[in-house]
C-alpha cells in the first residue's frame, strides 16, 4: 500500500471528509522540539502500488502538531501550530495567499484541533496553556475559552451526535465533558492515574468515550456511569498517543503509541486486540480511519513516513 516520505517528523494525519483519496499530514522538524513545520495535502494513487503524491504543502514557522479538515468547505484545513497559533489554509487559493488566517490567542503550543462534524461551522483547539478554545471561520477571535484543566490539554473532540457537546483530555489525568452553552464543564471523569493524551467519542453510541493514557492503556467510558470504565484495553508497551473510534463499526477503535505500533481493538470482546501493525520504526503518533472508505487506515510517526493501508493488509506491502 502507498507510502509517503515527509521531510519532517510526522505528527498527525487526517482523511478528507469530502474526497476518499485525499489526506492531510501535519509534520514538525526535529521531532517537534525545535524548528519549522509543514502541512502536506496528499493524494492516494488511482491504482494500487503507486506512491502517494503530494498535492500541495505549506510551511510554518513552528511545528504543526495537528490538522483538521473543514466539514463545510472541501479545501479548507485547520492547523494546530506549536507557536500557539491556529492557522487556516485553503488549498483552492494560490500558495501566496496561505495561510488564509492565523489566530494567535493560545499562549502555549496548540496540540490538537477538531472540526465540528454536525453543525460544521466551528472548531476546537486545545493547548498546553490548559485551555480549549472554540472558533468559527467568520470571527476574527475565538468565541469562548474553556479553562478548567489544571495541566496541558492534549486533545478535544466533538461529540458526533450532539452538536454542542465535546470532551477534552488533559495531563491533569481527567477527561471533561463540556456543553458550549454551559459556563463550566458538565462532567469530570478522573479517567486514568497518569496523563491522558487523547480522547474520542464513539460514533454509534453517543455516551461512550475512549481515552488513551501514559499508563499504556485505553479505557472506554460511559458518561452515564463513569465510576467504572466499560472496558480497559491493555497491550501497548508504552504511552498511548492517539485513539479514534471507527466511523463504520460501533465496537472498533484504533490507537497508536510510543511503542511504535498501531493497534485495532474491539472493546466489547474478551480478546480485544484485533490487529497490531508494527510498520513504524519510530514513535507512531498520528492515526486516522477513513470515513468514506470502510477499513482504510492511515498512520504517521517520527520515522517521517505516512502509511495508508486497508485493515488486515500489511502496510509495508508494495
Amino acid at each position, binding site marked *: 500500500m502507498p507510502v509517503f516520505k515527509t521531510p519532517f517528523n510526522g505528527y498527525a494525519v487526517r482523511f478528507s471528509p469530502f474526497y476518499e483519496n485525499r489526506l492531510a499530514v501535519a509534520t514538525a522538524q526535529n521531532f517537534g522540539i525545535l524548528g519549522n513545520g509543514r502541512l502536506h495535502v496528499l493524494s492516494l494513487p488511482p491504482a494500487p502500488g503507486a506512491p502517494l503524491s503530494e498535492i500541495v504543502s505549506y510551511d510554518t514557522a513552528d511545528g504543526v502538531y495537528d490538522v483538521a479538515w473543514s466539514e463545510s468547505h472541501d479545501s479548507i484545513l485547520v492547523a494546530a501550530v506549536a507557536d500557539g497559533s491556529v492557522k487556516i489554509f485553503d488549498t483552492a487559493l494560490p500558495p501566496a495567499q496561505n495561510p488564509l488566517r492565523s489566530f494567535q490567542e493560545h*499562549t502555549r503550543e496548540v496540540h490538537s484541533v477538531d472540526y465540528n462534524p454536525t453543525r460544521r461551522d*466551528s472548531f476546537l483547539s486545545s493547548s498546553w496553556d490548559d485551555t480549549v478554545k472554540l472558533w468559527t471561520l467568520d470571527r476574527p477571535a475565538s468565541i469562548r475559552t474553556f479553562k478548567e484543566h489544571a495541566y496541558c490539554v492534549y486533545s478535544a473532540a466533538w461529540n458526533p451526535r450532539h452538536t454542542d457537546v465535546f470532551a477534552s483530555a488533559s495531563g491533569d489525568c481527567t477527561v471533561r465533558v463540556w456543553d458550549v452553552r454551559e459556563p463550566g464543564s458538565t462532567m469530570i471523569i478522573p479517567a486514568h492515574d497518569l496523563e491522558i493524551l487523547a480522547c474520542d467519542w464513539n460514533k454509534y*453510541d453517543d455516551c461512550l468515550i475512549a481515552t488513551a493514557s501514559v499508563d499504556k492503556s485505553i479505557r472506554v467510558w460511559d458518561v452515564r456511569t463513569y465510576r467504572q470504565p466499560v472496558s480497559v484495553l491493555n497491550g501497548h508497551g508504552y504511552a498511548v498517543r492517539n485513539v479514534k473510534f471507527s466511523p463504520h463499526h460501533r465496537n472498533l477503535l484504533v490507537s497508536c503509541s510510543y511503542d511504535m505500533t498501531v493497534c485495532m481493538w474491539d472493546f466489547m470482546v474478551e480478546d480485544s486486540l484485533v490487529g497490531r501493525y508494527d510498520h513504524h520504526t519510530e514513535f507512531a503518533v498520528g492515526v486516522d480511519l477513513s470515513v468514506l472508505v470502510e477499513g482504510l487506515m492511515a498512520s504517521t510517526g517520527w520515522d517521517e513516513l505516512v502509511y495508508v493501508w486497508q485493515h488486515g493488509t500489511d502496510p509495508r506491502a508494495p
Partner: protein
Amino acid sequence: MDTNPQPSGGSPPKPWEQSGASTSGPTPFKPPSPGTTSDVVEASGTARPGEIVTSTNSAANRNTLGRPVPTRPWEQQTYGNSYGGIGSGMNYNSGFGSGMYGSSYGSSYGSSYGSYGSSYGGYGGGTYGGGLYGNNMYRGGYGGLYGGGGMYGGGMYNGGLGGPMGGLGMGSMGPYGDQDPNNPYGPPPSPPGFWISFLRVMQGVVNFFGRVSILIDQNTQAFHMFMTALLQLFDRGGLLYGELARFVLRLLGVKTKPRKVQGPGPDGVPGPHNPRGLPAPHNPHGHQNFIEGPKAAPTGSWDNVWGDS
C-alpha cells in the same frame, strides 16, 4: 479524484448518521439548540471573544483534583513572576523537570535568568525588585552580582551552561549605566535590540526544554533518547567524561593532577615565572586541565570550570 464533490453543502453524510441507531438509552445531554455555533454560544451568555489566558490563571483550579498535578516545566522557577510583570505574557522560567537532571538544569537556568532579570528591570519594566534596584545607582553592581550568581550556580552545578550566561549578565550591564539615576519613575527607554533578541533566544531555549519535558512526561523512552543525544553533544569536545571522572575522583579524595600544559608558550613565557599557573596574556590556552591533553576547547568557558585543584 473528486469522487464526492459537495463543496457547498458540507461534507457527505457520515455512516453513523445514515445508520439511524443513536444510543443505548437516555442521554445526559441537553438537546441541540438551533442556529450557528456563535449564535448559540452568544445566546447562552457564555461567549467571551478573544479571551487570552495565561497558564498561571488556572493554578487556582488545581484543588479541584484529588491528586497532585505535576508542575509545568516552564513554571518551576519563581523568577518567572518578574517577567510576567513586563506584560508580555511570556514565561521565562525554565527548569528541566525532576530528578537528578532537573536539579542541574534548573539551577543553571534559574541563575542565568537572574542575570538578565535584573538588567531588564534596569529600564523600569515591572514591579519586580529588578525594577527598583535597576533604576538607582546600584544598577551596575546589582546586575553584576546577579550575573555572578548565575556563574556561581552554573559553575557549581553545571559548568557548561551556567558559566557563559553568568558571564553575559556581568559583562553586558554597561549600556544601562547612562540612564538618569534621579528619575526612577520616568518612562522606560525603548529596549535595546540586543536584549530583545537575547530574550527571544532565551524563550527559544525555554520552549525547547518545555517541549522536551512534555515529551518526557509522555514517555520515558523519549527521555532516554534525549539524554543520550545531549550527552553526545556535550561530549563532542571530548571533555565531559574525562572531567566528570576527575570530579568524582576529587570528591572521593583522590588528588588527580591535571596534566597542565605549562611549558614555555609561543610567546616565550617560561613556567617558573608563572608560579600560580595563570595563563599568559597572549597564551589563552596555556592553562588547560583537560585529562585528554591539549585538545582545543570549543569555547573558553570550559576552562577552569572545576577550579584549580
